[in-house]
């Protein structure tokens, strides 16, 4: 039951849910950041599962670095969000069209 395949299936479902979150909540920046956290969690679970079943500690080292970088990313993303809200009064992605892109 608790095999490598089972963990990979759970992680791939979690990854799919995170991707769906990006598609469904396209307007809300906070929801987008949370979907990215879900995707990172799926990838980290994959790394740890491979590390356990292949008896190699390198996978866990990788997860350690990913966690550090993800924390930095969340901090900067939320700071940008605060600045955006202060200058625009909204966090709607559809309202960010100043560059006419």
């Amino acid at each position, binding site marked *: 039951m608790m095999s490598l395949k089972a963990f990979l299936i*759970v992680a791939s479902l979690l*990854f799919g*849910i995170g991707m769906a979150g990006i598609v*469904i*909540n396209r307007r809300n920046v906070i929801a987008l950041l*949370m*979907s990215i956290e879900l995707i990172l969690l799926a990838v980290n679970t994959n790394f740890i599962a491979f590390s356990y079943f292949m008896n190699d500690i390198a996978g866990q080292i990788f997860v350690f670095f990913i*966690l550090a970088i993800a924390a930095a990313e969340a901090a*900067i993303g939320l*700071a940008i969000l605060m600045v955006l809200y202060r200058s625009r009064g909204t966090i709607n992605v559809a309202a960010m069209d100043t560059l006419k892109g």
Partner: protein
Amino acid sequence: MIVNLLFVGFSALLLFSALMVVTLSHPVRSVLFLVLAFFAATVLWLLLTAEFLALILILVYVGAVMTLFLFVVMTLNIDLVSLQQPYKKLYIPVGLLFTALLSGILIYALFKTESPFIMYAQNVNTISLANVTQLGQVLYTEYALPFEITGVILLAAIIAAISLSLFQPTTSKQQSASEQINVKKEDRLRIIK
């Protein structure tokens, strides 16, 4: 036996709370379900004997990053109505289709694979050291340079976050302490004889 039960139960909890994070429209509830998802993932990581990373996930992620998320969500006075998708009914089937396709392809490939790494992977725990000892032995020798670079990246993130939120045109009224201290009697008081 009990390990299998734990695995199935907490995997189901993880997927359920992830689904709630994505579908709920209120951001505070989404953040709280994300915390629940992290706790469920922690149990899965503990089953894989990655104790150090599991505890780091709770301490750093739930303790710091999720608190930051909650703080930002509660600080911003978000207009929830404008964030509702006008055509959300269209996006949900598209999102589900994406999920089904992506996860379906991944799981299909997993069952069709003939890779010996995945077919015959077994944990043969030959090392009797604790997880933290094992990690520490390679982290400070083989991976010393990446470890230091991570520290520099975190420093850059601190500087970026502070400078982003510090130098802002203020829209609210606030005190100017230096002007208050430097005020003279003549500025405020006019003596009429």
